[in-house]
C-alpha cells in the first residue's frame, strides 16, 4: 500500500562561494510515498529549501548537485531527476512535481494578470487538451454557422488542427502576433478562462471571474497564495512541494491555507512535501516527518513516532525546547555550525549530549533503527 513516489538518496549539494565551499546538503536521504504528506522540518539554513530545489534540479548557482540520486516514479517508469536532460525536466516541472513558494506575492509576476499567469501553466503542460476542447466547441459552432462564419471557422479549425498535431508549430505562433489573424486565440483563451475559473473556485476564491483580471498586487496575501496553489495544482501533480507556504501570512489566513491544502490533498491525491519550521503545523498536517539538521536528514519517521519517541538526540533536544506552560524551558547548547567547515563525523556532535569519540570521527549511516523509523546516529544499530 505504501509505494514510494520520490526517493532521494545520498543527495549532496555544494555552493562554491567566495568564503569557501558551503556543504549545504551532505548525504541527505528522503522518501516520499504516494499520496502522503511529509513534513520537512529544520532550522533556518539547514538545507530544507535547497533539498526541494534539488529535486527539481533548480539549485541556483553557485550551487552544484554533486552526488546522489532522486528517483521519481512517473507514468513512464522511474527516472532519476538529477540525471535528466533539461527539456525532459521542463516537462516534469509543474506537471509531475510543482512548487509553492514562501512569499506568494513575489512568486507572481507583477506584469501579468492572474488569468495570464495560470494559463501559462496550462499551456506548458496541457495545451493538447485545451486545444482539443476548443476544437470540439468549434465543431459544434461550425454546424450551425452561416456561410460567412463557416469560412472563418474553417480557418480557425485549420490552425487548431495544426496546433494539435504539433504543439510547437510555427504558423499558429506567427499568426498569434498578427492583429485580426490572431482572433483564433479568442476561443482558446475562452476555454482556458473557463478552466482557470474552475480551478480558482476549487481554491475557494470568492468571485473568481473578477480575480482573473486582477494583477498580483491587487490581491491580498491569502488570495495570492491561493492563486499560487492553483497554479501548482493546475496540472494535477504527483508531488507538491510546499516551501513554507504560510510563513508570510497572518494566523487566520494561515489556518485557512492549511485547511485548504489538507482538503485539496484529498481531492487531488497528490503527495505533499511540506517544508516548515513550525512543529505545530507538522503535528497537525503531516503523516510523516523528516528532521533536518545542518544539511543532513537526521531522522525520518511517522509523525506520532517522532513526537512520542524521538530517537535522534537532536530531535529529542528540539522537542524539549518547545516552550510549554508549567515546564522548564530548555535550549540546545551551542550554535548551528558553519556549513563551510562542518564538524567532522556526525554534524551534531559538538552539541550532542550523548556524543562519543566515534561521533567525532565517523559519519553515521542513515539506518532503519525501528520499523519505518530511520535515523542517522551512532547510538542505533539497524
Amino acid at each position, binding site marked *: 500500500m505504501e509505494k514510494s513516489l520520490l526517493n532521494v538518496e545520498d543527495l549532496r549539494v555544494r555552493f562554491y562561494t567566495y568564503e569557501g565551499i558551503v556543504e549545504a546538503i551532505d548525504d541527505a536521504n528522503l522518501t516520499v510515498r504516494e499520496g502522503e504528506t511529509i513534513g520537512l522540518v529544520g532550522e533556518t539554513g539547514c538545507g530544507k529549501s535547497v533539498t526541494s530545489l534539488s529535486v527539481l534540479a*533548480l539549485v541556483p548557482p553557485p550551487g552544484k548537485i554533486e552526488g546522489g540520486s532522486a528517483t521519481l516514479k512517473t507514468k513512464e517508469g522511474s527516472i532519476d531527476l538529477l540525471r535528466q536532460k533539461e527539456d525532459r525536466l521542463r516537462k516534469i*516541472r*509543474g506537471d509531475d512535481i510543482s512548487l509553492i513558494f514562501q*512569499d506568494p506575492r*513575489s512568486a507572481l509576476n507583477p506584469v501579468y494578470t492572474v488569468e495570464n499567469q495560470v494559463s501559462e501553466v496550462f499551456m506548458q503542460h496541457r495545451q493538447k487538451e485545451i486545444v482539443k476542447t476548443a476544437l470540439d466547441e468549434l465543431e459544434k459552432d461550425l454546424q450551425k454557422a452561416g456561410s460567412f462564419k463557416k469560412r472563418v471557422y474553417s480557418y480557425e479549425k485549420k490552425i487548431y488542427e495544426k496546433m494539435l498535431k504539433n504543439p510547437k508549430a510555427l504558423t499558429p505562433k506567427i499568426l498569434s502576433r498578427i492583429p485580426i489573424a490572431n482572433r483564433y486565440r479568442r476561443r482558446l483563451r475562452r476555454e482556458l478562462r473557463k478552466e482557470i475559473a474552475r480551478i480558482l473556485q476549487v481554491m475557494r476564491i470568492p468571485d473568481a471571474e473578477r480575480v482573473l483580471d486582477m494583477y498580483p498586487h491587487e490581491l491580498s496575501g491569502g488570495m495570492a497564495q491561493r492563486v499560487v496553489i492553483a497554479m501548482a495544482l493546475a496540472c494535477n501533480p504527483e508531488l507538491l512541494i510546499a516551501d513554507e507556504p504560510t510563513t508570510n501570512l497572518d494566523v487566520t489566513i494561515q489556518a485557512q491555507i492549511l485547511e485548504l491544502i489538507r482538503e485539496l490533498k484529498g481531492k487531488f491525491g497528490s503527495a505533499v512535501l511540506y517544508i516548515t519550521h513550525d512543529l505545530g503545523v507538522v503535528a497537525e498536517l503531516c503523516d510523516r516527518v523528516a528532521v533536518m539538521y545542518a544539511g543532513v536528514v537526521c531522522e525520518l519517521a511517522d509523525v506520532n513516532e517522532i513526537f512520542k519517541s524521538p530517537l535522534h538526540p537532536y530531535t529529542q533536544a528540539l522537542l524539549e525546547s518547545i516552550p510549554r506552560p508549567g515546564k522548564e524551558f530548555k535550549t540546545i547548547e551551542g550554535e548551528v555550525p558553519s556549513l563551510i567547515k562542518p564538524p567532522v563525523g556526525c554534524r551534531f556532535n559538538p552539541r550532542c549530549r550523548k556524543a562519543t569519540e566515534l561521533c567525532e570521527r565517523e559519519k553515521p549511516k542513515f539506518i532503519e533503527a525501528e520499523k519505518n523509523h530511520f535515523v542517522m546516529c551512532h547510538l542505533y544499530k539497524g
Partner: protein
Amino acid sequence: MAPSIKEFKFMLHRMKQSPLSIVGLSIVLFYVAIAVLAPVLAPPGPSWAFVRYTDPFMMPRPITNPSGGTVTEPSPPGPDHPFGTAEFQYDIYYGMIWGTITAFRVGLWVTFVSMAIGLAVGIVAAYYGGIIDEIFMRFTDIILAFPGLILAMAFVVAFGRSLDNVLLALVLVGWPGDARLIRGEILRVKQEDYVEAAKAVGCSDLRVMFRHVLPNAIYPMVISATLGIGGMVLTAAALSFLGLGAPVGYADWGQIISSSQNWIGVRGRTYPHTFLIPGVFIFTFSLGWNLLGDAFRDIMDPTIRRR
C-alpha cells in the same frame, strides 16, 4: 480586444489626473502637429524666395539686394518673415517649422537605434553571463569612459560634417548607457521569486527571459528613452552650435542658433530673435519629452499604479 481598450482608457484616465503629464503630452502633440503640417504651414519655395532649393529642408532666402547678392545681416520680424531672418537672410519661421521634423528625426531615430543596440547587448550580456558578459560590458565601459560630447565631436570631425554623421555619433554615445541599464535590470529581475516560479512550472530559458524577465526589466529603459529624446535633441543642437551638425541653411534648430553667434551682441548690432526663437523651440521640445517621460513611468508600470 476589449481588455486592451479598457487598459488604454485607464491610461488616459491616469494621465488626466496628473496635470504635468497633460502639459508634456500637449507640447509633444503640438510639435507632432507642426511636423505633420509642415508643408502646409510653410510651403517650400515661397513667392519671395530668391534661391529655390530642391531639398525642402533648405531654408529659403528672400531677394533683398537688387544686385543679386545676399545680405549677411539678419532682419527683424516682418510681414513676409513672421520670425525674422537669420544670418544670410534665411527665413527663421520656415526653419522652425521644418526644423521640427529634423528634431523628431534626431530624437526618435537616435533613441530607437541606441535602444535597440543597448537592448541586444544588455540581454546577451545578462543572459549568457561569464566571459561574454565581461567582454560586452568592458567594451561599453570603454565607450562610457569618454566624455559623450567629445566622443561625438571626434566622430563627426573624423567622418565629416553632416546631419547623418551627427545621428550616428549620438547612437555611438547613447547605446552603452542603455545596455548597462537593461543588463542591471535583468540581473535584478532574475533574482525574483517569480522567475524561479516560472522555471518551476517548466518554462524554457528563452520563454523565461522574454516573457518573465524582460517585461519587468524594460520599464526603466522606456522611461530613460523618453527622457532621452529631449536630451538627444539638446546634444544634437550643441553639436550643431559648435559647427559640427547640419550645413548652413539647413532647417535645424541648433544650426540656426549657431548662425546667430555673430549677432548676439558683438559690434553693437544685436538681433535677439535669431537665438531666442530657436532657443525657445529647443527648450520646450525637450521639456515636453521630459514631462511625458515622467508620465510614462506613472502610467505604464502596473506595480506602482492603480492604488
